[in-house]
């Protein structure tokens, strides 16, 4: 028993090494991974990386307000005299947190439901789960999030909950597709015949076949969740001032267009970069794991 396990592990390690080799060959994926790494580091170490960490909260210094980009403040300052670059670094914290929280909650729920529904395809379990999913995806995600968010008190936490609520169905759908198509494959039937329990089949046989699409989707999703989160804060339903959130900053800055363009533009570019990074990363992961169009 021990021998097969080590052979298994070393084979897995070989696979991982091969995948990594393939990944590293693709220059775009490396760029994406680097961008994300930088952003995550900036987010985590914001208090140290930001030149003016105290500007992240409520801080006022009208002497230095509304300064265009210069040496002291590379991205300029806003109307309260706060350094935009520092605020962006702190804004990354919220963005990354939102992405992580939403996906950590939504993915497992969606995946589990999708697995169950896919494996039990044709039964009432399948119908109930998928109909429920259909209802949630009947409206554009942003719309539902906006509605839910607006009904609850605006806050970062509520925004995260709202987005999670409308995110899980997409995982459910994707996994459902895979699970229902492979549930008739021989290896599943073999497991059934040898008396494996349903839970074992679902999590040990079917789930591993979904890893590729799941990881790709998670990487791409991080970008989208952050995008939606910034949209919510843009309309004031997410982080509240004076918390530095990229979406709120764009909204605030919008008022001072076009003269003090830097207040809105730099946070906007920051948003683009995050999504761009996760997108390229996701594409790289997809190529590496050889997944079809997700």
């Amino acid at each position, binding site marked *: 028993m021990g021998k097969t396990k080590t052979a298994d592990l070393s084979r897995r390690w070989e696979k991982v090494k091969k995948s990594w080799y393939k990944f590293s060959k693709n220059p775009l994926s490396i760029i994406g991974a680097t961008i994300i790494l930088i952003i995550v580091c900036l987010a985590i170490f914001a208090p140290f990386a930001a030149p003016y960490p105290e500007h992240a909260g409520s801080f006022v210094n009208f002497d230095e307000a509304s300064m265009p980009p210069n040496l002291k403040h590379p991205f300029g300052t806003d109307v309260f005299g706060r350094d935009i670059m520092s605020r962006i670094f702190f804004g990354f914290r919220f963005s990354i947190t939102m992405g992580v929280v939403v996906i950590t909650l939504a993915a497992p729920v969606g995946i589990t439901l999708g697995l169950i529904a896919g494996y039990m395809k044709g039964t009432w379990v399948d119908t109930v789960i998928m*109909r*429920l999913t*259909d*209802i*949630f995806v*009947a*409206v*554009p*995600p*942003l*719309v*539902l999030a*906006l*509605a*839910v*968010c*607006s*009904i*609850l008190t605006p806050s970062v936490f509520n925004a995260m909950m709202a987005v999670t609520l409308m995110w899980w169905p997409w995982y459910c759908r994707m996994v459902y597709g895979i699970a229902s198509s492979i549930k008739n494959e021989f290896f599943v039937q073999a497991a059934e015949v040898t008396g494996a329990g349903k839970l074992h089949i679902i999590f040990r046989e079917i789930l591993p076949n979904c890893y590729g699409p799941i990881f790709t989707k998670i990487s791409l999703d991080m*970008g989208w969740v952050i*995008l939606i989160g*910034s*949209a919510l804060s*843009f*309309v*004031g339903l997410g982080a509240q001032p004076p918390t530095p959130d990229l979406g709120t900053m*764009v909204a605030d800055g*919008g008022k001072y*267009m*076009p003269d003090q*363009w830097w207040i*809105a*533009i730099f946070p*906007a570019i920051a*948003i*683009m970069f995050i*999504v*761009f990074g996760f*997108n*390229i990363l996701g594409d790289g992961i997809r190529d590496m794991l050889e997944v079809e*169009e997700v």
Partner: protein
Amino acid sequence: MRFLKFFARRLLHSIFVLLGLSVLVFLIARVMPGDPARMALGPRVPEEIVEKYREDLHLNKPIYVQYYYWLIGAIRGDFGMSLFTKRNVADDIREFFPATLELILFTGIVMSTFGIMLGVIAARYANKWPDNVVRVISYMGVCTPAFVFAILFLLLFGYILNLLPTIGRLSPWLDRPPVVTGFITIDSLIAGNLVAFFDGLKHLIMPGLALALGPMAQEARITRSSMTENLQRDFIALERSQAIPERRIMTKYLMRISIIPTVSVLGLDFASQLGWAFLVELIFNWPGLSRYGINVMMRKDLNAIVAVIMVIGLLFLIVNIIVDIVVAGLDPRIRLGAERSK
């Protein structure tokens, strides 16, 4: 005959989903903390009037009764009163919906035509510079939220270059053409008012483009990859070996099969536009359903919120059905199913 069955099933499914959606939204709306009646009327109104209002809205009854009343009204087209505009929600919708529809249709036309065009160019010059340019642009387009584009356009074309109008659907000094469809562009054409037509078009460009660029980029990518993939297939090689002119192969045989994935995605992209429209309409002060939606959501105007979501859900459903029909029309594998697969 199969087609009708397929269609009927879809219809039934859609009705079910709409109903389920209404239940979901209704639950969410009524579950929120606070007293809607009090919020609607304000703090200074005496309690008896508030109580009467509660009675009218059936707010004291159990939630399924409330839903029942709502459903009956909805079927009749009555969604109740809006606390925000103080009139029938149905009237509100009738007023604001065409504006959003016009914007969305404009966006849809732009994103599908240019998206496919860019994808074709990229595939034709695969791996040469036009392809790389299109790829980079598509990447940026996909990653940028519509509201960022909106703000950039506002800055560039609205303020700096002063080329395009920044607010609303029609310049304030022009009269609105008589309402036939509710579309300013079509109505002004019908009335023969070319000035208004071009003015309306000018107002459509920025918000429409802001919404269209993202999906356009997506369509371009999908078209490109679909075309380059299909170019490797044996049926293209066979057609070449039969001396069919290359041009014909590209425009007829390659196109039809490569467009299918693009069209399938159109439905989903359309949906995401409906979402981003909420922000874009806000930025451009576009008097549409989405701007109305944001306003009523901020004010927790429950009747209106539910109605807006239902309308959007319905629109999305219809678009999806249309997309499915078109795809089935293009792809015999779908509409004939695997009758005899080998």
